[in-house]
C-alpha cells in the first residue's frame, strides 16, 4: 500500500476501529527513554530496543493543520508531501528512492498538532538517512513544475479518503460543528476549495516559519543508545539555525451552550450509523488526573466486548451490531470523545440513541464498579507493555506526546497514573464534560437513489 502523506484523521479513525492502545500508553515500569538537547534547541529522544539491528528514525515538527493561516487549510499536509521533492543536495523525486536503495522505508504523516517524517533502516545505514533529514529541515527547494502536479495528488487523496466515503464526509461535518472557534474543526487535509488555491509560496512561507531545529524532536527507536548516537546527531543537526518559533497560541473555544445535531443522507449509504462527539480535555489541557479518568471511563463504557455499551446495546437489548468509543487524548488543545453505534436491521437511530443515552446517564450517576475499574486498569497497563513490541509504535508514542504538550515524564508515569485514578475522579470527569451542551450528534442514513 502507498501511504505517503496520509492525513492523520484516517489514523484516528483506524485507532478507534482497531481499539489500539491510547498513544500515551507506553512504558511499563522500568522502561526509560534517553534524551538530550542540542544547543540549537532540538530535542533528541532515544528508545533502545536491541532485538534486531534496525532503527526507526522520526523527525517530529511541532506544527500541524491547527497552526495554518485562515483560508490556507491543507497547507501543513501539502508541505508534508512537498518535503519529498528535493533540496539543494537531493534532486526532486530522489529522496524516497535513495532511502529504498539503502534498504530502508520512509513515509510521513500530518495531524492537527504535528507533522512527522520517518525512515526505518538497518543500523549501519542510519548515518546517511539522518543526513538527509537534517538536509531537508532547512534546505528544501521547490519549483512550480514540482508543486502543481503534487497539488493534484493531494486533491486525489482527498477524493479517496474523504469524498469517496460518506462516513468520512460526515466525520468532517461533525468536527466542524463540534468546534465553534478552534481550528480542530477544519479538516487536516483541507477544504477542497482552499486546497485548490494553495501555492508554492504558501508552502515555502509555512516551511520557513515552522521547520527548524528548535521546533523539532528527533526520535530514534531501535538498536541505538544515546551515548553512541550523540556524535552522529551533532554532526548532522548541530549547525542548523533555529528560527525562534514562538509558542503555539490558537483560538480558544467559548463556552458551549447548545447541543448540536446533524443529519446527512446519502444515496451511497447502505448501513445507517450514529456518532456522538463530546468536547473534553486532552492530556495536555486536563486538570489533575482528569484525562486518565476519562481514558478509564471510555474503556469501561465502550471499550471492547465486555463494555457497558456493548453489553447493553449489542448483547441485551439487541439494538446495535457494533458500538465503539475513542478518547483522542493526545491533543495540544481541547479534544473529543468519539462514540458511535451501528443499529441492527430495522432499529431506528432515535431508539438506539435513547438507549445509549440511558446507559451513559446511568454510568455518570453511579460511576464504575470496583471490578470494572480493576479490569480496565489491567487492560490499559498491559497495553503499555504490548506497545513495546513495535519500535515504530514506541517512536510514535513519544513523538506524539512531545508535540501535543506532554512530557517524557507524562508518558512514563502514565501506567501509574492510570492505576492511581479513583472511582470518584471518573465520576467527576464524566459529570464535568460528558454533557449534551458540549456535544454533537450525527445521523448518517441512506437516501433514496
Amino acid at each position, binding site marked *: 500500500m502507498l501511504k505517503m502523506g496520509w492525513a492523520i484523521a484516517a489514523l484516528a479513525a483506524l485507532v478507534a476501529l482497531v481499539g489500539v492502545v491510547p498513544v500515551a500508553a507506553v512504558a511499563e515500569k522500568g522502561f526509560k527513554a534517553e534524551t538530550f538537547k542540542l544547543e540549537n534547541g532540538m530535542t533528541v529522544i532515544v528508545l533502545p530496543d536491541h532485538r534486531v539491528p534496525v532503527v526507526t528514525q522520526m523527525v517530529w515538527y511541532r506544527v500541524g493543520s491547527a497552526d495554518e493561516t485562515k483560508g490556507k487549510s491543507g497547507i501543513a499536509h501539502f508541505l508534508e508531501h512537498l518535503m519529498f521533492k528535493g533540496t539543494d543536495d537531493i534532486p526532486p523525486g530522489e529522496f524516497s*528512492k535513495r532511502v529504498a536503495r539503502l534498504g530502508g522505508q520512509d513515509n510521513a504523516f500530518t495531524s492537527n498538532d504535528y507533522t512527522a517524517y520517518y525512515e526505518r533502516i538497518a543500523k549501519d545505514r542510519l548515518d546517511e538517512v539522518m543526513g538527509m533529514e537534517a538536509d531537508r529541515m532547512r534546505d528544501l527547494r521547490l519549483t512550480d513544475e514540482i508543486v502543481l*502536479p*503534487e497539488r493534484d495528488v493531494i486533491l486525489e487523496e482527498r*477524493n*479517496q479518503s474523504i469524498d469517496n466515503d460518506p462516513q468520512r464526509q460526515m466525520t468532517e461535518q461533525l468536527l466542524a460543528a463540534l468546534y465553534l472557534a478552534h481550528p480542530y474543526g477544519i479538516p487536516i487535509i483541507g477544504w477542497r476549495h482552499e486546497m485548490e488555491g494553495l501555492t508554492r509560496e504558501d508552502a515555502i512561507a509555512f516551511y520557513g516559519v515552522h521547520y527548524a531545529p528548535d521546533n523539532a524532536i528527533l526520535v530514534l527507536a531501535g538498536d541505538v543508545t544515546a551515548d553512541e548516537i550523540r556524535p552522529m546527531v551533532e554532526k548532522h543537526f548541530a549547525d542548523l539555525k533555529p528560527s525562534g518559533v514562538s509558542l503555539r497560541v490558537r483560538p480558544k473555544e467559548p463556552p458551549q451552550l447548545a447541543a448540536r445535531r446533524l443529519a446527512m443522507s446519502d444515496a451511497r449509504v447502505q448501513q445507517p450509523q450514529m456518532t456522538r462527539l463530546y468536547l473534553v480535555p486532552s492530556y495536555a489541557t486536563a486538570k489533575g488526573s482528569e484525562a486518565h479518568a476519562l481514558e478509564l471511563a471510555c474503556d469501561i463504557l465502550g471499550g471492547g466486548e465486555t463494555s457497558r455499551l456493548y453489553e447493553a446495546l449489542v*448483547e441485551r437489548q439487541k439494538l446495535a451490531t457494533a458500538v*465503539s468509543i475513542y478518547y483522542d487524548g493526545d491533543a495540544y488543545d481541547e479534544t473529543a470523545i468519539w462514540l458511535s453505534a451501528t443499529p441492527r436491521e430495522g432499529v431506528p437511530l432515535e431508539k438506539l440513541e435513547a438507549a445509549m443515552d440511558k446507559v451513559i446517564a446511568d454510568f455518570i450517576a453511579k460511576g464504575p464498579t470496583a471490578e470494572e475499574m480493576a479490569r480496565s486498569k489491567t487492560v490499559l497497563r498491559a497495553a503499555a507493555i504490548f506497545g513495546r513490541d*513495535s*519500535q515504530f509504535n514506541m517512536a510514535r508514542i513519544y513523538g506524539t506526546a512531545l508535540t501535543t504538550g506532554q512530557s517524557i515524564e507524562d508518558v512514563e508515569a502514565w501506567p501509574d497514573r492510570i492505576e492511581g485514578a479513583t472511582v470518584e475522579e471518573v465520576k467527576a470527569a464524566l459529570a464535568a464534560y460528558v454533557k449534551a451542551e458540549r456535544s454533537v450528534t450525527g445521523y448518517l442514513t441512506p437516501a433514496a437513489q
Partner: protein
Amino acid sequence: MGELRMMTRLMLSLVLLVLGAASAFATQVERVTSPGGIEAWLVREDAIPLVSMNIAFEGGARLDPAGREELATVSAAMLNEGAGPYDAGAFKRELEAKAIRFGASADLDTIYVSVAMLAEHRARAFELLGLALNAPRFDKAPFERLRAQMQAVLKQESEDPDTLAARAWYSRVFPGHPYGRSENGSPQSIASLKPAEAKSFLGARMTRDRLKIAVVGDITAEELAPLLDTLFGKLPATGPAETVAAPAFSDLGKTQIIEIDNPQSRVIFGGEGLARKDPDYMAAVVMNYILGGGGFSSRLMDEVREKRGLAYGVSTDVSPLRHVGLFMGSVGTDNAKVAEALALIKSEIERLRKDGPTDEELANAKTYLTGSFALRLDSNAKIANFLLACQLYDLGIDYIDRRNAEIEAVTREDVVRVAERLLHADRLAYVVVGKPQGLVAN
C-alpha cells in the same frame, strides 16, 4: 466499530498479501516437537515480557459448502464466543482479567487463531486457548448476534468501493469456483445458518494434519513442548480430503464497471500470477517491485503519480493463493482521468514485458528487497506472522536464512522470462467502481 468490519478488511488484505521479500538474518528459529508429535516453530525472545502464539489451520472459506460461503468466517469468530464453563460474556471477561489478547478469523485459505499475553499470565492464557480450541460452546445467543453483525458487515461492504471491486473481480474471474465467492456469504445464507453447522465445520476443519503453530516470546522449548499436547493433542488427526482444485481464469481482458456516484474511480485489475512454489516466484517478486510494488521507486508510481498527479496511489502485487497464483493491481483516479490512467498503466505493463528492466532497476530492486528484510522481522508480532506464513507456504524452517540469497540469484533473464509470463495488459481483468468517463465495459 465491530471486530467484524476489521476482520473483513484484514481478510481482503490477506488475499492480496505477498510473502515475498526477505534477508540473511540472525533470528534463531527452533523446531519444537511435543512428546505427542506436534510441531511448533519457536523464536525465543525475552527482551520484553510477552508471549504470542499464532495458529493456523490450512483450509478456510474455500472449503465452505456451496450456499454456505460464510461458514468458515462465522465458525472462526465463534471461537471467541464462549468455551467450557464460560458463556460468551464470561469468556471475554476472563481474558480481560489478565489482559489476554485472543483472536480468531478465517480467510479463503486459512483459519487463524492467535493469543498474546504478558509472560506472567502464560498459564491462564493457554488454559483459555485450550478451552476455545477443544470446548467451544456455540451458544445460541452469541450466534444470533454474530449473524446480525454479519448482515451489517455485508451492508458496509456494499458501500466500500474497494470491497465491491475485489468481490466483483473474484466472482467474474473465478465463476463457480470457491475463490469466486465471498467468504462473508449473502444475506440469505447468513439468515439460515445454524450453530450446529458451524460447530461441525470447525470439528472437521481444525485437524492436526492441517495445523501450523508459531510461537514468539518469553518461553523456552522445554516449556512449550508439553503444552502443545495439552492444547492440540485432542484435536482429530485428519479431516475430509481436499475437494478444491485449481480454478480456471475467466473473462481476462474484460472490463467491468460498477456505477457509484463517487468523485474517484477505484480500479482493481489482475490476472494469472505464480504459485508460491513456482521456480520463478522470486523473479516475479523482483519484477513486481520494479513495476508497481516498490512504492516511489516503482515505474507506475513514477509515471502515474509523480509525473502526472493522476492518483494518490497505484500499486501491483504478486499474491499466491493455495491453489492459484495471482498478479493484482489497483489505482484510484478522478472519474475524468481514469481512462488516461488505465491506458498509462497498460502501456507500462507492456513496456516492462517488451524491454525488460534496466540493470540499475534490477540492482535497486535487489538492494531494497534484501536490505529491508530485517524490517519485516523487527517485532515479535511480525516474526510470529512470518513463521506462520513460512509454514503455510511450506518454505522450510531455514527459509529465513535462504531468502536473501534467492533474491540475489535473480537475473535479468529471469525477470524478462517472468514478465513474458505475467505482463500482458490484454490478459488482465479490470473492475472499475465509480463514474468513470471514457471507459466501456465488455
